[in-house]
């Protein structure tokens, strides 16, 4: 089974959840990332997601591994969509199962934050008056040494 996937097709939420079903689990949390229409008042028409697919899958696997080291007994499945997405479409689904619910919530939150740090996926926003790759212009995250610092990779 592929627990970590980049998908050109719409994500079927239940299929992601089914991958983490385990007899030891007392909880499964699901995060569903969707395409928002308004960002700081600006209206998005649609998005295009692009991935460095082979590396993106590896980095999703790394995140899953990090979670399993931190939250014992966790199972993780992540699917991220690429291509053109319209408003309300599902961009990412993360499912985490753990023996106890608090861990399932925390680990799931960890996964989405890590995706935004280390997984090579980019979105291009299309507006009525133009388009732009997000992540480069804002420079909210810069890596002065050319790659994430150890703390970026491990926190």
């Amino acid at each position: 089974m592929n627990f970590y996937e980049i998908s050109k097709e719409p994500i079927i939420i239940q299929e992601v959840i089914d991958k983490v079903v385990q007899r030891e689990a007392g909880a499964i949390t699901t995060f569903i990332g969707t395409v928002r229409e308004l960002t700081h008042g600006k209206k998005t028409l649609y998005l295009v997601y692009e991935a460095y697919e082979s590396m993106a899958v590896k980095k999703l696997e790394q995140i899953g591994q990090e979670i399993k080291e931190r939250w014992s007994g966790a199972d993780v499945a992540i699917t991220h969509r690429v291509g053109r997405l319209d408003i309300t479409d599902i961009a990412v689904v993360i499912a985490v199962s753990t023996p106890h619910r608090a861990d399932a919530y925390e680990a799931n939150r960890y996964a989405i934050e890590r995706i935004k740090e280390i997984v090579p996926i980019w979105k291009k926003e299309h507006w009525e008056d133009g388009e732009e790759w997000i992540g480069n212009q804002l420079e909210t995250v810069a890596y002065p040494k050319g790659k994430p610092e150890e703390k970026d990779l491990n926190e």
Partner: protein
Amino acid sequence: MNNILFFAHLRDAVGRDSVQLDASGKTVAELKQLISDKYEAVNLEHVMTAINEEFASNEEVIHDGDAVAFIPPVSGG
């Protein structure tokens, strides 16, 4: 030879998603300089680099056959 990969705004700036060139023996920083000289629209200052799909520092040396990808700050999720 080395396959050099560009994504997102970098691909738009270069005009293609990859180029072939011999970067063996060069550091990541030296390759960045070479690319910046060749493509004036390309700014690699805040761009991460991956060698064979793993993040690499500016000091890392590129070997023959390595796939080098320039990774702009990511925006998935």
